[in-house]
Every structure is written in C-alpha cells, then in structure tokens.
C-alpha cells in the first residue's frame, strides 16, 4: 500500500520500445511515486537511458501505456559526457535555460536573477555564476545541470549516469546532494553503472536488461540470481556494515589476467 501523501507521478504498463527492429525495452512495468528515489541498473545497452527518456516523455513507446500525472514537472540532468563543454555559456546562462516560457526578452528579470542566485546558493556554486561551464570541476559541472533542472521546480528529477567519470569524493558529494533534495520532497530516478558506489546506497533499485529483472530495496535485488540474469555473469555478494558489496566472480572462473613479474 502507498503511504499517505505518496502520489503516483508516472506509471508504465507493459511498455515496449524499439529502435528500428531492435527491441530496447520489452513489457516494462514501472511506477514512479512522489517519494521515490530509485536507481536503474543494468549493463550497457540494457535500455536504461531509453527508460529514462520514456519517463521524460521524449521517447514514445511502441506498445504499452505511459500515464503521467497531469502537469507533471520533470527535470532532466543529462550525462556529462553528452554535454558540449566548448559551448559558450556561463553557469548562470546555462541554469537560466530552464526558463523558456512566460518571458520573451533575452535578459533575466529581477525575479529570475534572484531565483538563479537562490538555486546556485542552495547547491553551493553561487560564486561560479559568471564562470564558463568548462572551467569547473566534475562535481561543480554536475551541480550546474542539477541547478538548471531545479529552476524548473520539478516534482521528478531524472538523471542519466550522474556519477559517471567522477572521482570518489565527487560521487560522495553528489549522492549526499541528491539525498538532501529527496528529503526536501523531490522524487528522483537515476541510471547508474556503479553498483557499489551508487546503487547500493539508494533506497530502491530497478535491475534492467531490456525487461525488468527485479525491483525493490538493494538488499532484495542485489542478489546473485537477479544480478546474473541482469548482467549475464555470476557475481558474489558480500556484506559490510549492513550494505551489500558486489564482487565480480572472476577468480572462481579463473579469468584473472596474469601480469609478468618485474624484471623478467
């Protein structure tokens, strides 16, 4: 049963998507509620980004249905690898892009200036407003795009690989930031490859490989059987301080690459 005040934002019923003849998602059932903080995990090409785009509304399903809450505001944070970092925009110009409705004039209104300042301050990057987006660290860049999404006052935040290619410290910061945003009432769905550093820390996971293999709390889905069906390889699960730690089962399968000894 859904807790009181936990509204259904998006519901996917038996959604199937394909690029050409190749199915990317098959019969996916998924519900995103207003208190959700979910990670979608799966191997490359498993349909994670497509599922995110279905939730976003930029990919229409071939079959099945997508039901969205009326006037749902969705924020989207793209993969940092897909961003054109040479594009001439400053941090504040980038954040203001979220405002395309209601005002035709190119420059910021006084209210918009205050709102941009507020969201940048909330994310701790208010001193970077005039900087070019390329002149930022990985964590700061991620925050700029989260700020842009937040300026649209979303109820649901979708993020594509938010910790891809960032160091441990930045991943830690992003995770804490998202946790704070979720506590403030924002529903979050993200994709990630990082099972130990990211997925295991989230309250809810969806294991995807074209179809949903399993979904639920990390303890329930980060189990050998579900992971093997998701990734096609056997994995070993350890537990540390109540958290599952996933290990590739290379040693058992004798797949370790031997390095030549030094000086030989």
């Amino acid at each position, binding site marked *: 049963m859904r807790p009181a005040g936990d509204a259904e934002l998006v519901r996917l019923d038996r959604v199937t998507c394909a690029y050409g003849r190749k199915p990317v998602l098959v019969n996916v059932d998924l519900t995103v509620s207003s208190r959700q903080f979910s990670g979608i995990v799966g191997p490359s090409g498993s349909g994670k980004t497509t599922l995110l785009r279905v939730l976003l509304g*930029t990919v229409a399903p071939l079959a099945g249905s997508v039901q969205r809450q009326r006037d749902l505001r969705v924020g989207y944070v793209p993969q940092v690898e897909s961003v054109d970092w040479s594009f*001439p925009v*400053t941090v504040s110009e980038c954040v*203001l*892009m979220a405002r*395309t409705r209601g*005002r035709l004039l190119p420059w910021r209104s006084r209210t918009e200036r205050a709102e941009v300042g507020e969201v940048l301050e909330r994310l701790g990057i208010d001193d970077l407003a005039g900087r070019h987006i390329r002149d930022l660290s990985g964590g700061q860049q991620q925050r700029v795009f989260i700020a842009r999404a937040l300026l649209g006052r979303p109820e649901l935040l979708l993020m594509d690989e938010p910790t891809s290619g960032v160091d441990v410290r930045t991943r830690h910061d992003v995770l804490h930031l998202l946790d704070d945003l979720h506590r403030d009432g924002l529903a979050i769905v993200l994709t990630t490859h990082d099972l130990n550093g990211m997925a295991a820390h989230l309250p809810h996971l969806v294991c995807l490989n074209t179809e949903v293999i399993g979904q639920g709390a990390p303890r329930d889905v980060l189990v050998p059987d579900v992971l093997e069906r998701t990734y096609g390889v056997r994995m070993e699960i350890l537990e540390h301080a109540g958290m599952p730690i996933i290990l590739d089962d290379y040693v058992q399968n004798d797949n370790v690459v031997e390095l030549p000894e030094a000086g030989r």
Partner: protein
Amino acid sequence: MMNDLLRPFEFEFFRNGLIVATFAGALCGLVGVYVVLKGMSYIGHGLSHAIFGGFAASALLGVNFVLGAGVWGVASALMINGVTRRRLIGADAAIGVITTASFALGLALFALFGRRGRSFDAALFGSILGVGIEDVLAIIAVTVLVALVVFFGYRRLLFTTFDPEVAEASGVNTARIDALLMLVLAISILATMQVLGVTLIAATLVIPATVARMLTNSFSRMLLLATGIGALTGFVGMNLSYHLDIQSGPTIVLVGAAVFALTFAVTGTRGLGRTAGLDERGTAVAPR
C-alpha cells in the same frame, strides 16, 4: 589621401553597395553564431550553392529572382532539415546530394540557355554593381526581421542549440526551432547573395562567429560580437573592394580572414582553444 578614401562615396552605387555589404556582414555574423554552434557550417555552404540553382532557373524563366531563388532556397532548406532530422541517410550525404545537384543544375542551365554575363559572376562571387535602393531596403528588412527572430526567440534558440533533447523535454518545439533556423539561414543567404556571392557566403557565416567565440565565453556576448565583426568586415571589405578593384565577395572574406589571424595573434591558443569542439557537433540539424 583622405579625398581618395572618400571619393567612392560620391557614387550612389557604392553607397548602396556599402550599406548592403555592412548589413550583409552583420546578418551573416548573427546567423553564423547558430550555424557554427550547431555544426551547420556545411549546411550553410551547401544551401548557398543550392540557391544558385533557383537563381539560374528564375533568371532563364524570366521569373522574379527573389521569388524564384527564394522558393528554391526555402524548399531546399526544409528538405535538408527534414532529411537530417529523420536521419534517413547521413546528414552530410543528404546535404551533399541536394545542394550540389542544385548548384550543378544552375551551371547547366546557364551553359545551355544563358549567357555568362555580369549577373552570373555576381551570383557566384559577389558584386556591388547594380545594387539599387530596393536591394538596400531588402537587406535592411531581412536583417531587422532576423534580429527580431533572434531577440524574441533567444531563449528557445539557445536551449535548442545547446541541448536539444532537454529543450524538447522542457516543452520547446525543437523541430519548429530547427525549421525556423533553416528558413532564417535561407533568407539570409538569399538577401546577401548578390554582394557576397554563393561560393563565399559560407565564409561570412563562419568567420565572424568563430572570431567572436575566440573572444568570449558568453553566448549573448558572442551574438553581439559576431554581428559587429560581420558588419565591420563588410564595411572594410567593400571599401577595399573598390580601391583594389577586386570583387566584393573575396575582399570581404579576406578581411574576415585577416581579423581571424589578428585575433589569433592576440588571444593565442587560449582563443583557439575555445573553438575546440565546434567541429565535433556534426552537420546534423537533428538533436545529437
């Protein structure tokens, strides 16, 4: 010396040509920002060649040039936009087929039925001879129109140019914005063709925007700078064209190239580094 410099201003054709060249430079500089940032340089080059086919056909059929080349150019622009958005074939292949075929048709029509006269050379390389008051009014009208489109569409154009997928998800009709950009590009080429020449318009689209990018990291400043640099190269180029007795198109482009070289000398690798990646966006109008 001063008298020599001011002498051409006595001639009405020169004054008209100078106004047209200055506005043409500003217009191409403004539109060029989107062309460069969206990786559409090849489209600009191709579209200008495609319009030549319409110019040749309308000249031979006795149809009004603006109407004939305009319809041809807009049709080519929308066709290229449609093919690239649907990704039916590679964007550069589509543009190559449509535009070079159109250009070749123009050359063939002139070879078979026309005379390679002044209008033929002017269309290819640009000329200020024969620039009348109606051309002056036309270029001013088109520049004002495009400036209004950029001013009032600034936010949507910027979002679509930078991040088409998120722009679409945020409610921006990116297909309409892409089509609008193609129309703006086609109209701009049409309006500037006589002074700049179809073979050289692409350079006037690319150079001011690239120089502006070398000078700033801000999109709004890049728009203003590119427009100013374009106007300046048009003005200086047209004056030099008269004094050196070289066609206006090549002179304006060479002035632009000199501005680029000067900017590079001043900004060095820092400026050039800012333009890195401009060529990585591909030639597609469609979202990456």
